[in-house]
């Protein structure tokens, strides 16, 4: 199709037309800049005279900014999408879209891309702040690029989580609550499970289990579900001289090669995004029995 997706055009237009987009962007950047400045002041006083003070400031700035940006992306993107389809239902414009010649895929895709475009704007906006850290030295281009990839795939996954709830539920308030709930469950639940697991099994586990290939894969898999743990692990591996794309785990006599956490994280994020997108598309197809909506039961009279 030569024409741009109509939903995308409409949503981008209305997103950018109001003052909300600019206010959100401004708040987001103010938080980032504020944190960076505070950090700089704190660190500069502490290690002002050391030889490689510049490098340390650079690294601290980079990791802080990346972390804050990641938190913001995790919280903002699901909110951007969770209102999208549910918002059409609330506004009673949803039926008009579904009854038109738009395919369910076009509707879902248009909603996703318009939200992602805005999320990408947020990510691009931190590039100047990151290059400031770059100027101090201490971090390489590899780290910056991995951080950006990590932010982008996180935006994608968390946007589709919001989109899925938006296609599932009738009100944007409900969809937003469930989306944020899912995000919090992921971000806090995974570390919680890891801690519980290591408390139970950690001290008493036989080394045969801990050294088995399955355990290595499984633990890497769990780690790769969590953006902060995955990207953080990658960062520490890189700073201790590890490879970019894979990691060699030594277990007794043998060596196991596993993909770097950030690679696995990106792959899993893309996979789950695709699955959630497919689920959303199914939900938008009215002629499939089961996708039957129940809004009108409470409607009137």
């Amino acid at each position: 199709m030569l024409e741009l997706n109509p939903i995308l055009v409409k949503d981008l237009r209305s997103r950018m037309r109001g003052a909300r987009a600019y206010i959100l962007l401004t708040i987001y950047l103010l938080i980032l800049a504020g944190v960076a400045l505070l950090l700089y002041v704190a660190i500069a006083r502490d290690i002002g005279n050391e030889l490689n003070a510049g490098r340390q400031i650079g690294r601290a700035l980079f990791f802080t900014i990346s972390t804050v940006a990641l938190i913001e992306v995790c919280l903002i993107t699901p909110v951007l999408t969770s209102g999208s389809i549910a918002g059409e239902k609330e506004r009673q414009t949803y039926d008009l879209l579904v009854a038109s010649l738009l395919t369910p895929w076009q509707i879902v895709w248009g909603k996703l891309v318009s939200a992602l475009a805005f999320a990408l704007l947020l990510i691009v906006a931190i590039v100047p702040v990151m290059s400031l850290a770059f100027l101090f030295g201490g971090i390489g281009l590899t780290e910056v690029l991995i951080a950006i990839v990590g932010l982008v795939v996180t935006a994608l996954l968390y946007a589709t989580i919001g989109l899925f709830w938006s296609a599932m539920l009738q009100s944007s308030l409900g969809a937003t609550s469930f989306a944020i709930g899912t995000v919090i469950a992921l971000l806090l639940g995974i570390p919680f499970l890891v801690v519980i697991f290591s408390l139970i099994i950690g001290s008493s586990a036989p080394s045969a289990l801990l050294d088995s290939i399955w355990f290595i894969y499984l633990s890497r898999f769990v780690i790769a579900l969590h953006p902060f743990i995955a990207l953080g692990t990658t960062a520490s591996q890189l700073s201790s001289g590890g490879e970019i794309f894979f990691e060699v785990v030594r277990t007794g006599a043998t060596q196991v090669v596993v993909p770097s956490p950030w690679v696995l994280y990106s792959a899993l994020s893309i996979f789950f995004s695709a699955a959630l997108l497919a689920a959303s598309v199914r939900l938008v197809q009215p002629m499939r029995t089961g996708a039957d909506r129940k809004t009108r039961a409470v409607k009137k009279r």
Partner: protein
Amino acid sequence: MTSLVETHNLTRRYGSNLALDHLNLTIPEGAIFGFIGPNGAGKTTTMRILTTLLPPTSGEALIAGVSVTREPRAVRRLVGFMPDFFGVYDNMKSWEYLDFFGRSYGIPAQRRQQLIGELLELVDLAHKRDEPVMSLSRGMKQRLSLARSMMHDPRLLILDEPASGLDPRARIELRELLKELRVMGKTIMISSHILSELAEMCTHIGIIERGKLLAAGEVQEILRTLRPHRIVEIRVVAGAAHAEALLRAHPDVLELRREGARAESDGQEAPLNDETGPHTLLADFDGDEHALGDLLAMLIAEGVRISHFAEQSGDLEDIFLHVTKGIV
């Protein structure tokens, strides 16, 4: 006339609630089909199935021979829909609203521009082209929505209670607009629970209640078959009680009602009192003009004072009450 819409045993359940019960509906091409029924009768449910927004539980619906369930996209091309409740987008102008739906129907940019002008002209909103949709009045939004439903030049327009919430003038304008659309060759299906709203503009009607089609066909035919007798309206200034007794005893009077009472049994208890003002009686009369003349002469000879004596014009409202009697 070939039929554009056909449903075969169309059934829809919501849990245990049977919203549509083996509905067999036919709408000929070029008709203005009035779909009438009380609240909760299943009008909206039928329309949502025909617009592919709701899957039927069983049965089949065809639009121009195309199955609603098997080829929804082909059906969407044929049908323009105006739901009973619909929203508009804030910060969108009238022309942008139409433009957006034009895109959604894959209409090329050039044709779209031209169409928007024509349709705004048709629904008399050309002067509101650059106004935000939110600022339009309800009647204007309704007309804009009608223009929207016509963007892809559908053969069938399905309008769910388009006149609700409109003032009398807006209703008349809507009626004129629909007549114009009919001249353009559109088939129109329009629902309402107010019969008089549809009476003058429809060529066909279907009466639905509790998911069942009670009657359907050409308006004139329905009038003939469902109301074989004339209803005579008699306004009595004096001697009402006597008149009532006389009419009741008359062999040609099949049924006698007092105005305001819905069924014969409603107001039978107390005899009519002339003190409480002139009363109007409605007599279901099975006889010709001559018999009617004799009836009037008889009443006057009996001393009844009559200020008004006239045959009621064929009123769909009565048919509606007659057909749906007791089930509501």
